[in-house]
């Protein structure tokens, strides 16, 4: 059994140990770690109290089990084995723990395995001064000696106090950590609430708030002035609401609170729910939850507005419907509105006449109405099946139930589509087709008549074309005939010339006395043969000229010539005739006469012809040939003036016709075939010129040829 260690041992420390105790005490005070303190303690015992082995064990406050904390002079396995529950009273260690004083255990006396190996040991509870249940551990040391007991007792006291203190400190830190976690948890809970949540005191000061509440009620100094003001205002509004609530209705209540959004400056409407809380230490406070109902109110207002609009729209629709009814009823043609199942939803009075039978009407009428209905239903179902086209047109053979006569109608249907494109209704208007059919019949007749007319016009046109062709053919034939005539004349002139050549030749020879001298009467008569033959030759030449001109076989020969020279030649050629006729002839050149570019031979032929005519028709007197130039028209003029018999005004154009003289009777008197002027006119035309006659019967004539100074080929 154990015996209590003598108490005096601790009371009388050796002088040397006082210093060691002080050093250890300082070390213990400086350390905050229990294990370190324990290790230093057992080491100190070994060094200063001659302990061979020492162990410091602590009671786990959770399990009440004793565990070794530090040891000296024993194996780790022994250290580990030293694990005892506080309630195992039979165990020496557990026993010593609850004992009042240090106990010395003799060798082998204690139950269980010896904690420090074989041999006696001392067990000192830590701290000795405490009540057994409040002790935190035990100090074991061996071998027992008075010195060891004394030192162990002191150590147990000092170490015990330290360990108790460390344990209390750890508890406080742990508690603080727990509280901190709990507070964080609480804050995260209230921050996760989507509504602003606040705990305020009776003055309205915020004790706890979540972030959403902070957004409304807290402004930091660096934030904008507007925000500061908004936050101040919000705090005032909130405090006012709380205090009025505290007065009016102390129990939890809902009320509306209008605040300002500090960020945007807009109004925010909240529903405020406040509850009074009593806290034993903090006193009375309020927990407030604010719910944003701004959107809710806007939505409510929107719903009200929509409802109002709906009512207006309904009224409009009603008015529209009334108007539509009026319109439909005022249309003379039947109108029907059918739903998707073919049921008639609406019809006007004319439609009713066709599709409803009045009460008490006869069987015939009922039957007609049913037949109409069947035809119409069939038509409408076709409309529904008609696919894409929004309009549908068709003909329905209805009957007029009242007049009991067939009523062909043209039906035009329009589909009423929903916004999803489904056909919701069909509106059909029926148009009396009787008239249209009559019109079609009339139109057919008209068309037939028109076709007949067209046919006649076509025949007439064909006839016209035929006649035109005939005329053209005739024109061609005429042209050919004219050509043939010209050719004929040309051939004839050749045929005439050949014998004339012989006549003229032989006559000339006879007159020259080739075959011997002739008597004067023979010469005179032969002279007549000669002159007649020459006259005949002239006529033939004239005919040839005309045929050549008409056949287009008389080309222009343009050359440059001088008028004075030409006039001289002309006068020289007619000189014998003039002398023979005992006339006088003069020429007159007026102004500067430019050189002429033209067909000299033809100009000469014309003027020669005019001259011979003048000589022929001037029994006595003078002939004057004059040449002039009109610069403005760039024309030359050659005039032949005589003092002859003249030409009556009526005859002045006729004389240019073929085979004409002014008076046919003069032909006999003056001779000539009357082709000269005709040829002159044709030649003048070829030269792009003209011949103008001025004359008076019995007072002479003037024939003037005008031609361009510069001739051009046609």
């Amino acid at each position, binding site marked *: 059994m154990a015996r209590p260690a003598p108490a005096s041992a601790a009371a009388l420390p050796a002088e040397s140990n006082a210093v060691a105790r002080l050093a250890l005490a300082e070390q213990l005070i400086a350390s905050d770690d229990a294990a370190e303190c324990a290790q230093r303690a057992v080491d100190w015992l070994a060094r200063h109290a001659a302990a061979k082995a020492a162990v410091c064990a602590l009671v786990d406050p959770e399990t009440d089990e004793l565990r070794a904390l530090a040891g000296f002079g024993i194996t780790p396995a022994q250290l580990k084995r030293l694990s005892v529950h506080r309630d195992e009273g039979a165990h020496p260690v557990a026993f010593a723990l609850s004992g009042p004083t240090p106990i010395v255990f003799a060798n082998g006396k204690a139950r269980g395995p010896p904690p420090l190996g074989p041999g006696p040991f001392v067990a000192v509870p830590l701290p000795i001064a405490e009540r057994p249940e409040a002790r935190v551990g035990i100090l074991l040391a061996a071998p027992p000696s008075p010195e060891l007991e004394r030192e162990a007792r002191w150590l147990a006291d000092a170490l015990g106090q330290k360990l108790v203190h460390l344990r209390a400190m750890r508890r406080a830190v742990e508690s603080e950590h727990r509280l901190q976690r709990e507070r964080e948890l609480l804050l995260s809970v209230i921050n996760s609430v989507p509504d602003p949540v606040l705990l305020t005191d009776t003055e309205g000061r915020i004790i706890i708030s979540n972030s959403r509440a902070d957004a409304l009620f807290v402004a930091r100094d660096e934030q904008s002035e507007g925000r500061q003001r908004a936050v101040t205002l919000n705090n005032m509004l909130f405090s006012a609401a709380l205090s009025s609530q505290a007065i009016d209705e102390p129990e939890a209540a809902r009320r509306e609170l209008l605040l300002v959004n500090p960020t945007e400056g807009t109004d925010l409407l909240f529903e405020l729910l406040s509850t009074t809380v009593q806290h034993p230490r903090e006193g009375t406070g309020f927990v407030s939850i604010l719910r944003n109902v701004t959107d809710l109110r806007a939505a409510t207002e929107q719903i009200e507005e929509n409802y109002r609009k709906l009512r207006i729209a309904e009224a409009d629709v009603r008015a529209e419907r009334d108007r539509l009814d009026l319109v439909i009823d005022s249309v003379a043609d039947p109108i029907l509105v059918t739903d998707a199942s073919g049921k008639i939803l609406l019809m006007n009075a004319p439609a009713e006449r066709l599709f409803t039978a009045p009460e008490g009407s006869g069987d015939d009428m009922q039957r007609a109405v049913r037949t109409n209905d069947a035809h119409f239903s069939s038509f409408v179902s076709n409309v529904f099946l008609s696919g894409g086209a929004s309009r549908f047109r068709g003909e329905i053979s209805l009957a007029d139930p009242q007049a009991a006569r067939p009523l062909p109608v043209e039906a035009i249907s329009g589909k009423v589509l929903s916004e999803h494109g489904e056909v919701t209704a069909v509106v059909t208007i029926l148009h009396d087709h009787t008239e249209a059919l009559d019109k079609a019949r009339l139109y057919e007749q008209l068309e037939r008549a028109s076709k007949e007319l067209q046919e006649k016009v076509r025949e007439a046109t064909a006839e016209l074309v035929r006649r035109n062709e005939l005329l053209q053919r005739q024109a061609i034939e005429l042209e050919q005939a004219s050509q043939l005539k010209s050719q004929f004349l*040309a051939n004839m*002139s*050749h*045929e005439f*010339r*050949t*014998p*004339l*050549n*012989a006549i*003229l*030749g*032989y006559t*000339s*020879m006879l007159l*020259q006395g*080739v075959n011997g001298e002739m008597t004067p009467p023979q010469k005179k008569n032969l002279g007549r043969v000669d002159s007649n033959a020459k006259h005949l*030759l002239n006529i033939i*030449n004239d005919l*040839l000229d005309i045929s*050549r001109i008409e056949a287009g*076989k*008389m*080309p222009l020969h343009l050359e440059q010539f001088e008028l004075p020279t030409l006039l001289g030649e002309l006068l020289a050629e007619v000189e014998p005739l003039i002398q023979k006729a005992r006339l006088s002839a003069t020429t007159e050149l007026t102004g500067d006469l430019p050189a002429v570019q033209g067909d000299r031979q033809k100009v000469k032929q014309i003027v020669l012809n005019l001259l011979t005519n003048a000589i022929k028709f001037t029994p006595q007197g003078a002939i004057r040939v004059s040449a002039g130039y009109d610069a403005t028209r760039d024309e030359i003029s050659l005039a032949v003036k005589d003092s002859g018999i003249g030409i009556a005004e009526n005859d002045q154009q006729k004389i240019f016709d073929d085979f004409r003289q002014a008076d046919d009777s003069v032909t006999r008197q003056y001779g000539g075939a009357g082709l000269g002027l005709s040829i002159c006119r044709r030649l003048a035309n070829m030269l792009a010129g003209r011949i103008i006659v001025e004359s008076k019967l019995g007072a002479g004539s003037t024939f003037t040829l005008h031609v361009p100074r510069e001739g051009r080929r046609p």
Partner: protein
Amino acid sequence: MTPEPLVLVVDDFQDNREMYAEYLAFSGFRVIQAANGKEALDQAFANRPDIIIMDLSLPVMDGWEATRRLKADQRTNAIPVVALTGHAMQGHSKGAMEAGCDSFVAKPCLPDQLVAEIRKMLSTPRVNAAKAGG
């Protein structure tokens, strides 16, 4: 003494041919005659006349063709040919010149006019006047 110039008169119309022949003889020329182009060639090759009076519308061979052949033959190409025709149309004189005629006289042509033309032609110096076998 230089013999009088020999004139070949070609005309199918006997009266005209003989009329000119008589008058030319009367005027001092020697005259030979032909009634168509073929005869004219024969006469010309045979007698080498100094000048030929050639009617153009002729049977057997017309005056244009005869003239072409005369002018193509070196024996006769130097002999002046005076075309003589009653066809006073443009085409005739042009065709005659193209065939090689040296001058053109339209019928009716009085015998004394023809003589004047012949004298004029004979007096005109000719470039290739060298007469073969002259």
